[in-house]
């Protein structure tokens, strides 16, 4: 697999798996407006994933399309980070995951708009505008819940603490990002200052404390996942595996 293809798959898998998690909120969110918001954010991510999977398939040149890559790869062939595969938990935990991930994804896509690869640059330029809304959405909720009642304050802090240990993986460089950092891809370590700056500003405004736990080294980019991903894929891929080629 080429570096470029592997990179496209990573970006796609992060977006696809988080999109599925957000879709799980459909009909379960605290109110109708939030139900619509979470599924709309999921839809944006799904659109980004489709573009990236299609590109990964083209780079591979073996005739696999977006559906083959989304529905017919096994758990160990997915290279998403652990953060996006974490179960939704309560609304506070979902908002913590959204804040952490959208802040990272926004910084990443902003850099990727400058990629020397026209396709990555175009996908990122489209997505960056959407992700700005995602980050706004999460930011608003973390502040509202954090600086809310005693109960919402505690649950928001718990959500932030719970998702915290998975954030380190987002910024870990490896051989693939190292080889692509010269212009095609983005060096993830470089995204950390912008991420810290937004997260710290939001946590402070939300009267939340920055979680103190250490960041766990990531294995998702190597295809080693938490137990949660297998269950997620079983649900996501079931229909397509039962009826190969099924479409709307």
């Amino acid at each position, binding site marked *: 697999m080429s570096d470029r293809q592997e990179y496209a798959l990573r970006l796609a898998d992060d977006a696809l798996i988080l999109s599925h998690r957000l879709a799980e909120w459909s009909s379960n969110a605290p109110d109708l407006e939030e139900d619509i*918001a979470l599924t709309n*954010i999921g839809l944006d991510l799904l659109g980004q994933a*489709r573009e990236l999977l299609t590109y990964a398939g083209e780079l591979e040149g073996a005739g696999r399309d977006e559906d083959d890559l989304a529905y017919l790869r096994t758990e160990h062939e997915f290279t998403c980070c652990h953060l996006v595969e974490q179960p939704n938990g309560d609304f506070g935990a979902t908002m913590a995951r959204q804040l952490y991930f959208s802040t990272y994804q926004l910084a990443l896509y902003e850099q990727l708009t400058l990629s020397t690869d026209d396709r990555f640059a175009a996908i990122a330029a*489209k997505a960056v505008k959407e992700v700005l*809304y995602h980050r706004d959405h999460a930011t608003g909720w973390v502040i509202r819940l954090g600086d809310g009642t005693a109960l919402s304050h505690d649950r928001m802090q718990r959500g932030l603490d719970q998702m915290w240990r998975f954030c380190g993986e987002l910024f870990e460089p490896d051989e693939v990002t190292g080889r692509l950092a010269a212009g095609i891809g983005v060096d993830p370590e470089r995204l950390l200052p912008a991420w810290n700056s937004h997260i710290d500003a939001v946590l402070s405004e939300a009267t939340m404390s920055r979680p103190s736990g250490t960041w766990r080294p990531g294995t998702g980019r190597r295809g080693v996942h938490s137990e949660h991903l297998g269950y997620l894929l079983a649900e996501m891929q079931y229909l397509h595996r039962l009826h190969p080629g099924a479409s709307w």
Partner: protein
Amino acid sequence: MTITQEKDARETLARVVDPEIPVITIAELGILRAVEQTAEGAVRVTITPTYSGCPAMDVIREEIRVALAADGFRDVRIDTVLSPAWTTDWITADGRRKLADFGIAPPAPAGRGGPVPVVIQPRPVAVRCPQCGSERTREVSRFGSTACKAQYRCDACLEPFDYFKSL
């Protein structure tokens, strides 16, 4: 295809409306990017999505094909491009007026980079109620019935309405 045919194709496409907001055409919405003839004489139509995940794109492609076929264009190629990224600033003046008449407040200028990266609300732009014209309106949710809309409520006439958000 001659120049006249290209013009005819353009006129045909000027009647294709957005499936989710059927008062506005794809040209007025700014998602119809180009209508050209290829060297082989086919009609090449270039469109761009509003949002990456816009579920209307398949329907729009189908409607373009149907409209062109009905007017005798058989050889049609539809390209979907992402770059340059669509912005609400491409919605025409006619399109904006039609949105307002339909009850959807048209978008504020997007400027560079779309929405304003704020930590704390409120949004700086006053959104005018498409029912009564008041600017005493409130955002209910940044996300609405489609990816491109937000939900608002008017404090003057108390009606809820959609706002086509800037992108």
